[in-house]
């Protein structure tokens, strides 16, 4: 599937330290720009799957292609570089770089992009402005949770990735803010042409997505 943002076949993963856990996923595809909610309860392996997709962990078998390239066939710096330019990630606790300003957090992502360095600042500022981020020169620890989330979203799409992986991005928010946050993520990914694979255990999130996949149905025999 050359046009697919994500293409997974027969993925098998085992923790060496905990052999009892095994994740088997027959297939999962996301077309370019498609937005999918991956639903499932806690401990079902959603986060592990996202890390496998990002190439942060290696599977025992199977294939994960992002924008047409198998991320696990690449090694070392080339895989890191590919992840930096093709995958954006949003975390539950944002994982912003502490001590850095909002602008610098977005610029940090652009450091590893293919975008000419002369365009980094303009790209970062325009992204933050489009997300109504006023205090872009404030350190992230001085920002409100909502503002930190905007920085995290801006950082995820800064390199114009094919795919954004959002891992429980609303888990620490109240229902009202969670709805606003997911709307922001959906809108930003759409505007930047990125497919979105978002995990959540919150059933209320399902109404925000046109396509919802249950992890329990995707995995072969379930995670053990």
């Amino acid at each position, binding site marked *: 599937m050359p046009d697919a943002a994500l293409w997974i076949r027969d993925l098998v993963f085992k923790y060496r330290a905990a052999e009892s856990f095994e994740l088997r996923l027959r297939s999962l595809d996301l077309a370019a720009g498609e937005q999918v909610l991956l639903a499932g309860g806690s401990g079902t392996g*959603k986060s592990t799957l996202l*890390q496998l997709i990002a190439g942060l962990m290696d599977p025992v078998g199977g294939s994960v292609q992002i924008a047409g390239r198998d991320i696990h066939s690449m090694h*070392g710096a080339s895989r*890191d570089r590919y992840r*930096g330019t093709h995958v954006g990630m949003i*975390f*539950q606790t944002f994982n*912003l*770089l502490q*001590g850095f300003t909002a602008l610098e957090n977005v610029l940090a992502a652009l450091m590893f992009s293919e975008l000419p360095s002369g365009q980094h600042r303009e790209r970062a500022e325009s992204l933050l402005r489009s997300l109504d981020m006023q205090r872009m020169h404030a350190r992230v620890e001085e920002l409100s949770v909502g503002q930190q989330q905007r920085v995290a979203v801006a950082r995820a799409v800064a390199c114009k990735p094919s795919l954004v992986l959002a891992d429980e991005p609303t888990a620490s928010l109240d229902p009202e803010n969670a709805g606003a946050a997911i709307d922001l993520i959906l809108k930003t990914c759409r505007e930047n042409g990125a497919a979105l694979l978002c995990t959540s255990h919150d059933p209320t999130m399902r109404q925000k997505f046109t396509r919802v996949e249950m992890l329990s149905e995707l995995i072969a025999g379930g995670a053990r």
Partner: protein
Amino acid sequence: MNDFTIIRRSLTARTLSTVFTTLSVAVAVGLMLVLLMMRDSGRKAFERGSGNMHLLVSAESDPLTSILNSVFYANPPRRPIEWPKFQQLQRVAPWEFFIPVQMGDSYRGLPVIASTPEIFSKFKPDAEQAWKLREGRFFEKEFEIVLGSKAAAETGLKIGDEVALTHGTPKRGEADKDAPAPHVHDEFKFKVVGVLEPTGSAHDRALFIDVTGAWIIHAHDRREAEAHAAHGGDADDDHDHHDHGIETTAEDLTDEDRKITAVYARVATRPGSDASAMIPPTFARLRADPTIQVAQPTQEINKLFQIVGSVDQILLAMAGVVMASSGVSILLALYNSMEQRRRQIAVLRVLGASRGRIFRLVLAESIVLGLIGSAIGVAVAFVGVRLVTAAMKERLGLVIDAGIDPRLGAIVVAGAIVLAGVAGLLPAIVAYRTSVAKNLRPLG
């Protein structure tokens, strides 16, 4: 935004640790540079003082003491050489110069050196540099005085001023400008006729007069004492000055008055050459005379530096230990920070930083600590050397124009930076091996 921004943020995020680590590097580099500067410059200062003389003849107890007293003014020489002896020694070898020198008088605690005009025309305080006048002229007759550059600065004397000299030298620290000296020759005024350019040697602290003037003063003392004795006093009570209406001139001098304390000597050499085959036999011949002491300044200075050399090496070794400990402190500071930085490293990895780049970032951070510390250390060294040289001048009277061979300085700084880099290796390896998946929690 670049790697340096990340390093800067990382260093400022733990300011206290960064400051202390940097200071430890600065102290190590500063200490090492101060020791090296003092070692090189101290030797240069000693070499400068004896200038182009081959031999120093005196009546001191040992050669090193004679050099320290008669060239570096450590203390006034105690034993004189009688004038007939000087004349006898003058015939021993074909001298290029054989300059009589008398020390023992002072002005406001500064040494007065009485000699002949040859001290300016033939003796050079620095082997490659003759005396230069900043203003005025050299002395031409008795009761004229030429000031060394620092003596001029310390006394504030200028051309045309007249001063009375003191017989004897107050102990260092007692040279109070306003306090009356114990034995001032008020009856003989010396007129300042010249001020010398700095030579970088102990001679800069000296005042130079014609030796005949010094002899006249002492002849006057003798004659007054004799007159005093003739009037029923004690002839040896030469410090009890009464006015007996005596006037003393060069005509009144006897050989007893013509005492000197040292001779600056140089055997004849070919033009442009400092060495002479005549030096060893002349030295041996003079050495055979038990009434005098003969010293080769270069050899005595070498001996002196052999004595202090081991202390020097111990100090340098200590500076090396301080340097090594500063490397350890960099290692500990970075290693301890790794625990707090695992998440930052994991995030950078997610954003696309390779393990190699993370390794280089931590290593560069360590090197930056070394660089900043070294820069501060160089500044500390230059301030420290000024303090040490000022203290040495004050306490030892040794004028040291401290400087360092730029290559040696560069080696010390480069060594500190390399050490910082080595110290950063372990933390960089820890950073390299940081697990991304584990450190992004609560991801799962």
